[in-house]
Every structure is written in structure tokens, then in C-alpha cells.
């Protein structure tokens, strides 16, 4: 197990050293959310009604910018080969790297979301639900993204293919994340049923995605 945490620590340290990745992702999130009201016009009622959906879609697009990198750098410089020959099963290698990605990208995006909610006139009572659903949903974003990253490893223009492969898989997270928030804003449905399904999606991806990612890594390493 120490190898697991050692790998995670290395990935966290690399993310801090290389820095630029997180800034790009947060910047992209900010820009997308900031230009949407310009396109939609200054209708505050409309904005606050569609704010949950916009915040979620923008978050998924922003996350998509960085998930490709989960395995890419280690593949390019050969570190992935050595990781595969280590004591850790490839499934746990994938899990550790996806977890590190969540900590360095998922959490910052979640924390930025309330600030961006202000730009979209998100109703006051929804901020708690926004933080909660995003904190719950972003692990699924990172872990499912790891599958895409592993699948598109050797490809030159993997980024676009990654979007095609992964965005459809994000649909359940998007639907239940947004419907949980809408339940809080407009009612009358309860917040909990969609939120619980979101929890289930996240937990399932935590268990299943590393297995799928490891299978893809095996193919690409050979």
C-alpha cells in the first residue's frame, strides 16, 4: 500500500511543480462561464434557471482538458513501463493516478464553482447543493477520464478522440448532478434521490474505472 501513496505523492508533487495545468483548467472554466451570459443576454431569471446546467457542462469541458494528461506524460517518458513492473497491480496504478488527478483538478474546480455561480446569478439556497454535488461528482469525472486517457495513449491527436469517448460517459453524472441542484432551487422533488444516484455513480466509477483503465494500459504498453 505504501507504493500506492508514494505514487500519489509523486503525482501531486509533479502537479505542483508543473503548475500550468491547473491554471489552464481553472482559467478555461472561468472563461466559459463568463462568456455564456454575454451570449445569452442579461436576463437574470433565465440565467439563474440554467445556471446549474451551465456550471456542470463547463466543469466537464474544463476537466476534459486535463484528464488526457493522467497517463500521457508517464507514457511519453517511459515511467509507465517501470510503474507496470512495480509491486503495484496496474489497476492500483491507475487508481492512484486518477485520485491524484481528482485532488489536483477536481477539488480546485469544485471550489471555484461557487464563485462562478455568482456570475450566473445562481440562487442563494443552491450554493450548498452546488458544492456537495460537485464534490461528489468530480471523482467520477477523474476516474472515468482515466479510462479515456489510457485508451488514447499512443495517439498523436488523442485530445479530440478523448472528448468523443468520454463526454457520453459523463452524461449520467451531468444529469443527476444538475437534477439534484434543480430540486433544491425549484422543488418540489427532493434533493436526495438524484444525489444518492450521483454518489452511487461516483463509487461505481471508483471501483470499475481503474479496471478498465488498466486493461487499456496493458494494450498500449505491449
Amino acid at each position: 500500500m505504501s507504493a500506492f501513496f508514494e505514487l500519489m505523492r509523486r503525482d501531486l508533487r509533479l502537479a505542483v511543480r508543473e503548475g500550468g495545468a491547473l491554471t489552464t483548467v481553472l482559467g478555461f472554466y472561468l472563461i466559459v462561464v463568463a462568456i455564456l451570459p454575454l451570449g445569452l443576454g442579461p436576463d437574470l431569471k433565465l440565467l439563474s434557471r440554467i445556471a446549474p446546467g451551465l456550471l456542470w457542462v463547463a466543469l466537464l469541458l474544463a476537466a476534459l482538458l486535463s484528464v488526457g494528461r493522467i497517463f500521457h506524460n508517464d507514457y511519453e517518458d517511459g515511467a509507465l513501463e517501470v510503474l507496470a513492473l512495480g509491486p503495484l497491480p496496474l489497476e492500483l496504478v491507475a487508481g492512484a493516478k486518477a485520485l491524484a488527478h481528482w485532488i489536483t483538478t477536481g477539488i480546485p474546480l469544485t471550489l471555484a464553482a461557487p464563485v462562478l455561480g455568482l456570475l450566473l446569478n445562481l440562487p442563494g439556497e443552491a450554493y450548498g447543493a452546488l458544492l456537495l454535488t460537485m464534490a461528489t461528482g468530480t471523482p467520477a469525472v477523474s476516474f472515468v477520464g482515466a479510462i479515456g486517457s489510457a485508451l488514447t495513449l499512443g495517439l498523436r491527436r488523442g485530445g479530440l478522440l478523448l472528448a468523443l469517448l468520454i463526454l457520453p460517459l459523463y452524461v449520467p453524472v451531468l444529469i443527476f448532478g444538475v437534477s439534484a441542484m434543480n430540486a433544491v432551487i425549484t422543488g418540489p422533488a427532493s434533493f436526495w434521490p438524484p444525489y444518492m444516484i450521483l454518489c452511487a455513480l461516483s463509487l461505481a466509477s471508483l471501483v470499475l474505472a481503474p479496471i478498465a483503465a488498466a486493461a487499456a494500459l496493458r494494450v498500449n504498453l505491449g
Partner: protein
Amino acid sequence: MKLILDNLACERGGRVLFSGLDLELAAGQGLLLQGPNGAGKTSLLKTIAGLIAPAEGEVRLDGGAGEAAVGEQCHLIGHLSGVKRALTVTENARFWARYLGDGAVGDALERFGLAELGDLAAGLLSAGQTRRLALARLLLARRPLWLLDEPAESLDTASRALLTDLIGGHLKAGGLVVAATHYQFGHDFSQKLTLGAQGAQAS
């Protein structure tokens, strides 16, 4: 301990690189892989490590550590260094030491003449120094089987001599070495395997 290749065949992109390869390598023996570019030297090394699934046959390490796969008992030093450019030399070495085993970081870096560069970002190292840092993995975790793919590439004369010493020491201690190289190391590899268009020829 014995490395056994049993009727091994490897296929890459629909092309058979070698087939029916039988080979036994006992403890303390080295195997030198030779052959022209594209003959399948790297593929054979990766097959032994378990990164490439053999098209036929199997690779075994008799007398190794119980259930552990061959991959967990070998070092594969390939063309790519596996060195993270954003981490310092010491951080790279410390990570591999903790991840792969429990070697002493200081000793390994000292041995490869990297001790003074410990605080330097690995991205600033020259090609030869990067290779030396990759080779330091051999000492950072004790593993019986070394798979070396052109290990002498971009090394200077002194480092090549050091590598020759290390391989000699490892063989004497009962380790196994499989090296694909065009560089003539000082000591004799007890077995040679030439891969080529006509298939593998052992001698």
C-alpha cells in the same frame, strides 16, 4: 534461479519476429542479444518482462519469489529513461527506491556519479546523465533479473566501465542479465542469441 523461455513466439503488427524460441539461463549467466535493427531485441526483452503477451509459449523464472510475476522480479532499462523532468535527481531516485524496493538512494547516486547533482532538476541533465539516473534503478531495488536494452547508449567511457563492473558484480552474485547491445562489454556473456530474418539462432 533459472530463466526459462519455452517455445516463445512474438508477433508484432501481424509480423512474426521470432518463434519456437527455447532458452535456459541459469543464475550467474548473462545472455547477449544481437541482431540487426528491427530484429525483435526490444520486443523479446518486453516479452520477458511481461509487457508484451507472447503469441505462443511462456516465460518462467524458476526458483524466483513464489507467486510474483517475472515483471516484478526484473529491471527493464529501455530506450526511454522514465525520469521525471520536473523532479530533482534525488526525488526521482527516492521515488523509484520507495516504489520498487528499498535501496539506499545515496549509494546508488554516488555510484553513478550523480550525488553532486542531487538537487538539480532532472530535466537539466545531459543525455548521458539521464541514462545514468535511469541505470541507478538497478541499484535502487534488488531484483535478480536485469533486462538491458542498449544500456551503454550515450554513456561516456567511464560510465561504460562502471556498467561493465555492475553487470559483472551482479552475475557473480548469482543474478541474471539479458542485454541487447552493440557495445562490447569487457566480460563474456555465457550465451549469445542472434535474432534475425531467419529466426533466432542460439550459440
